[in-house]
Each structure stands twice: as structure tokens, then as C-alpha cells.
């Protein structure tokens, strides 16, 4: 497979996964912003911090204004990470490898591109139809995931697509959990009630999962356990790493790159740092330090991966 094609597969799915995660988070935050919560007006700061690269001053201007924050996150062309910009990028990646993806996948990417650039969507987001616009976009992201799953052949393209998807998912999960524990200053003992954790769990589509699987009221520990260690929860860090491990093994076996061993070692370290960790282990460096280390190692691994397989320029 051409390096450029592998690269495009990887990034197509990174962008699509990012769109899905972002929309789910915005969906949750928007609903939350409708309720008046005890601390006053809903604050968009954490979301703006995760998905945009703007300065704290600029965030301060926008953070209390729902309409402006949503506009900026979804439609602004100057925000290099807005939904419109990343869907445009996703489509460009897809177009450059149209002969390698199925017709159905291409049509869905194309459809979403037209959807986000449709003036009707913009109008909906500005009016009080915001929620249904976000829901419609989110549904289409899920549709994309379903279409790729049921039409793409399971070969190298699939492996590179999946690597992109789970690396992106893992990064977003780390960011999101970090933001929520940051608010309570990483204090595991001062237990917050479930209402506090609802927004995080909804954002990762894990609220029902939590109610079914965790009975005790040690919410701070339980939520962290679900999101970091639970291998059955599809948005947990461990789950993403397990998937990455599989697809990494596949592409390494298929291509046999010269950096094979260093790549596997690097990922192995990252993986065992989650697989064989517990709260005792986390306490040594603190949750903040632990999450930061995971993030750094994951980014490093992703760079090594692109160096091995995609370096064509």
C-alpha cells in the first residue's frame, strides 16, 4: 500500500472520530447549559480548551456565551479544529484515495461535507433548533462508523483506519477525564455526587454503563476506574489501547518495517502502564502526572508510527 494512502486512511478516521467525540461532548454540554446549575451560567471553557488552540483571554470572552462558543467550535473557518474544517479535511483525504475506499464510505463522507457546508445547518445552529442540528450531525457520524464497519474490507486499509480511530479516541478520553478531575483538583477522596459526573459519563456515552456496573458511592474512584481501566467500556483508555495493540500487530506483521522492535517496545510500555496499573500505582505520581505521562507517550507513539509507515515527503 502506498504510504500516502495509508496516511490518508489514518487521518480520515482520526478526523471522523474527532468529529464524533466532539459532537457528543457538545450535545451533552448544550443540554447541560439549558439547566441553571448551582454555580451559575454554564461554562464552555473545558470544551474550548480541548478542541481549540485559542489563548485563555480569547476563551474568557467566549466561555459564557453558548451561541458564540458553538459557532466557533462547529463552523468557524479560522478555528483549525472546527467541525467544518476537520470534515473538509476528512473529505480531502477521502477524495485522494477514492479508489481505495468503498463507494458507500465515500458517499457518506461526501454527504457530511455537504451537510456541514449547507447554509441550513448554520441557520439551525443559530436559531433554537440547535439541538436537533447537533443530533443530526452526530447521527451521521455514527452512520459513518457503521458504514465503514460493514463495507470496508479487513485488510491493511482497515488496520490503518482503526489505528487512527483508536489513537484519536484515546487522546480525547485522556483530555476529557483530565478536565473533569482538574475541576476538583484531582482530589480522589472528596467524593462528588453522581450529578457532577453525569456530564463526563454522557460525553463518553457511559452513563448507563456506570449505573449498571458500579454500585458503591465512591464515585471519584468508580468513574476513574470505568474510564481508565474497564476493558468492556468502549471509550475507556484501556479498551482503545487493546484495539491499537491488535491493529499495530497486523500492520507490523504485514509490512515488517525496520523500526519494528522499537515501535513495539514503545507501545508495550504505554500499554502496560495502563494494563498493569491500579490506584496505588497512580497515587505515586498523582492522577495529574499519570494522565500527562499517558498523553505524552501516546503522542510519541503516534509520531513513531507515522515515521515508520507514512514518511513519504
Amino acid at each position, binding site marked *: *500500500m*502506498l*504510504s*500516502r494512502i*495509508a496516511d490518508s486512511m489514518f487521518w480520515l478516521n482520526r478526523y471522523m472520530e474527532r468529529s464524533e467525540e466532539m459532537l457528543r461532548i457538545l450535545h451533552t454540554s448544550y443540554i447541560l447549559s439549558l439547566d441553571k446549575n448551582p454555580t451559575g451560567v454554564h461554562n464552555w471553557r473545558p470544551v474550548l480548551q480541548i478542541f481549540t488552540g485559542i489563548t485563555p483571554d480569547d476563551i474568557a470572552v467566549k466561555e459564557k456565551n453558548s451561541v458564540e462558543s458553538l459557532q466557533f467550535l462547529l463552523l468557524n473557518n479560522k478555528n483549525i479544529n472546527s467541525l467544518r474544517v476537520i470534515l473538509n479535511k476528512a473529505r*480531502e483525504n477521502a*477524495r*485522494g484515495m*477514492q*479508489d481505495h475506499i468503498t463507494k458507500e464510505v*465515500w458517499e457518506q463522507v*461526501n454527504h457530511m461535507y455537504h451537510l456541514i457546508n449547507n447554509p441550513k445547518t448554520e441557520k439551525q445552529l443559530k436559531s433554537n433548533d440547535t439541538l436537533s442540528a447537533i443530533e443530526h450531525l452526530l447521527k451521521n457520524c455514527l452512520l459513518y462508523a457503521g458504514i465503514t464497519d460493514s463495507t470496508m474490507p479487513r485488510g*491493511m486499509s482497515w488496520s*490503518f483506519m482503526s489505528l487512527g480511530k483508536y489513537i484519536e479516541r484515546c487522546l480525547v478520553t485522556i483530555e476529557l477525564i483530565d478536565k473533569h478531575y482538574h475541576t476538583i483538583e484531582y482530589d480522589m477522596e472528596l467524593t462528588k455526587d453522581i450529578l457532577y459526573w453525569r456530564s463526563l459519563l454522557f460525553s463518553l456515552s457511559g452513563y448507563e454503563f456506570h449505573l449498571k456496573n458500579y454500585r458503591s458511592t465512591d464515585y471519584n474512584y468508580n468513574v476513574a476506574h470505568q474510564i481508565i481501566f474497564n476493558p468492556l467500556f468502549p471509550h475507556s483508555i484501556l479498551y482503545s489501547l487493546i484495539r491499537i495493540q491488535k491493529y499495530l500487530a497486523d*500492520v507490523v506483521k*504485514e*509490512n*515488517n*518495517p525496520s523500526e519494528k522492535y522499537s515501535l513495539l517496545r514503545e507501545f508495550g510500555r504505554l500499554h502496560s502502564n495502563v494494563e498493569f496499573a491500579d490506584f496505588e500505582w497512580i497515587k505515586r505520581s498523582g492522577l495529574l502526572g499519570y494522565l500527562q505521562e499517558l498523553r505524552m507517550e501516546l503522542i510519541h507513539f503516534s509520531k513513531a508510527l507515522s515515521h515508520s*509507515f*507514512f*514518511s*513519504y*515527503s
Partner: protein
Amino acid sequence: MLVLMRKQPFFIKRPRMTAKELLINYSGISSWDEMGKAESIRAPYQQLLDAISSLSVEELRQKDIQAAELFMNQGITFTVYSDDSGIERIFPFDILPRIITGTEWHHIESGIKQRLKALNLFLRDIYNGQQIVKENIIPAWLIASCPHYVREVHGIQVPFDIYVHISGIDIIRGEEGKFYVLEDNLRTPSGVSYMLENREVTKRLFSDLLSGNNVRMINNYPLLLHSILLSLSPRPVNNPTVVLLTPGIYNSAYYEHSFLARQMGIQLVEGRDLLVNNHKVYMKTTRGLEQVDVIYRRIDDEFVDPLCFNPDSVLGVPGLMGAYRKGTVAVVNAVGNGVADDKAIYAYVPEMIRYYLNEEPILSNVPTYQMSDAEEREHVFANIDKMVLKKTNQSGGYGMLMGNSSTEEEIRDFETEVRNNPRDFIAQPIINLSTVPCFINGSFQARHVDLRPYALCGPSGIEVVPGGLTRVALREGSLVVNSSQGGGSKDTWVVDV
């Protein structure tokens, strides 16, 4: 009981028109009509009309809409650039096929084969011994001043001495139905995907008609092309690596590039996917470098190698020409073909045929005046209302002036340009292109057409795909068929009666 009846004053009952009645209203314009006028319709068209005569106008309209949808859904579009932003459009398609008889086709086909043989020999000659110049058949200055004559490929040996593997020779039909060659496209002719897709769409619209009319098959084109590309591999390996080199997704013909790559099952690559090492071309894959044997390039000469030609080009591959010279990679079409389809050299093709093949040309050229010749130039300007002036190195309907439909000022401006640079222009008498019926706005209307048959030259000879792309000037009376100037296309049938 009182029944309230509402009057419907706006409802006018339209008579159910059928194709047969449309035909009675059909009148060609003042040129050769390929179908013939209502009272004397030529046999192959009669057969088609009999078959569709029972269809109502509404049904024909439905087919028209259906065709447009088929093109749109499959993303068969080309990009038009205006105001910095590209718009994706479909290439307008007319549902009525254009018909060429087997006899007519035989004439066209043998003419094209003869012409391509001569052009290939000319290219070999001009980049090697240059006998044709030494014997004063073509003036040396004309070659030397041709912008597409590429000094850098002089003396390079190409596989099987084939330079023009893929060509599109534009054929027109003038008054009295005589065929002429309008121009030769020997560099990177495009449009073949439209020819193939047009047939696929016709199959869906009029499925029963094709088999009933003995229409010759065209869909083996990708297979023929693929086998020619494979046969050119310089490395004697079982499964040579063939790639299609595209300028990328922003090129207006990108759809065609990805279509052909898919149809042949070869890699579609961009310049950045390739590199040259030790005079060999490699593509960068996830498994490392893989040697490339044959490149079907859809990039113009001046962009293929920044080390050799345009140094600013990022579309090409640095060092490609070095590998080409060494013969480790085959490039299709050969570099430097532009010298043979230059519009000023075009005038000498009949001479080439006589010189290299010792035969009389089967297909005529359109009479061509060299603007560098003072006498011919004055003749042209004296009769400007009957002439079309063309820039020798431009295509796509750009850089031309139709003497009969331009303002005095436009003519004056063009004349100054010509006098400053006479070598860059030629003139031809305006040929009244033949017309065929098109289904436009619910009626049959005559529109001017040309024909671009696609020919493939390989080690085992020349194959011309029966038919080709018929381009239609959709504006009434217009003689410009280029897609960039509001042209459309038709499916083209070669039928054996």
C-alpha cells in the same frame, strides 16, 4: 344537491406529443445533418427513431433527468475554476446517440491508423536523425521555434519506438459530409472516461436498443490500455508495476484518472509518492520502496521533472528524466510529443504521410494558413470573416478567434497580436460542422458536433475504439464544442447495417 365545481382556468390540456411528432418539427440548420431532414432520414437513424417513436415527450424528459442523476450520484464531475473556488459540475449529456455507419467508420479508422503511423515515425525521426528536416520537407525553424519541441529527450530510445501510445484525433464533418482531421492530441488527451460512462448510461436508458442495432462494443478500452502498459515494462518481470501519475485531486480531470486506475487495477499515484534513486523510479509504500516500471502520466511535459523542466513544479518527480534516459522506466505518452500536435506542424502531416509511408492521406486536413508566411497572412486578414484564427500551442477552445462572430475591435486586437508573433498563430477557413438532433427543452434540435475517437498504439499494432466521444456545442448555432465553453457530449454508436 348542489355540487360545487371549481373552474381551472390555468389548466391547459397538452396533447400527448410523441417522438414521432417531434421529428416533424425537426429542421436542421444550414449544414450537413447526420440524420437527414424529415423527408429523407438515413437508414441507421430511421431504425433508432422507429424504436423510440412511441415514447412521449414526458418519457424522454424522464430519461433526460435519469441520465443527469446517474452522472451526479456517481460523482462523474469535472471542476470549473472561477473566483478562486472550484465548482463541481457534471458534463452535460444528450440522451440521443450519434450514429456512424460501419462504412464511414472504416474510413475514419484506416485514416487514423495511417496518420498515427506517420506521426510516430515523425517523432522518432525528429528526436534522432531528423531526416525530414534535412530533406526540407518541414522547415527547421518551424521545429526549432515550437515550444513543445523538447531538446532534452533527443536520442532517448523508447520501447518499441512507440511515442504516441494514447491519442485522441479530433475529426469533424463539413458540408457534403466529408470527414476532416481538425487536430491531433498526442500528449495527454482526456475524455475517454466520458466515452465509457456515456455508453453505460445509454445501456440503462435504452437497454433494448443497443443489442437491436448491432452497436460495436467499446468497454474493452481499459483492458487494451492495461495490456499495452504492461508490455512496455523495461524489466523482464512477470508482474511489472504500472502506475497512473495524476497531478492530484484539484486537477479538473481527476475523476478520469481515478476511474482509469480503478478500471485497470493499477495504483493512482501523485508526484510525492515517487522518488528516483540510482536512476530507478520507486514508489513509497508502507513496506518501503517498490520499483516502478511503467508510468502512465497525466501531467504535462513541463511539470514531469523539476530538475529538467519547470523548477517550480511540485507535481512531478525530481530525476525522472534521468531514469527515462537510462531506460529503467517507461513513460506513457513519451515526453516531447507536443512537437507533433503543434497546430503549425499539423499542416505538414499530409506531407509526413507521403514522406514516411509513401501513401496518400486517407483523411484530409482542414486547409491551414501559416501566419508566419506574409502572403498567407494578408490573404487571411482580407477574408477574416470566413476564417478562424488559433494559437498554435493552446487547446480547450482558448486562444482562438472566430472571424464571423467577433467585433471589429476584437479582430483588431488579435491582428496586432498575430503580427507581433506570427509563428504562434495559424488560420483555417471556418468549417460548418455537421449537426445531429439533440433532445433539448422538450424538442429535437440540431446542434453542431465533432468526434474524438481514441486510439491505442502498442507493440502489436494500433487499435481505435469504435466510436469515441462526440462533443456537442449546446448553444444554438455555436461551433465551439469544448466542455470549458459550454459543450456537452453524446454516446456514439458505430452500427453495422
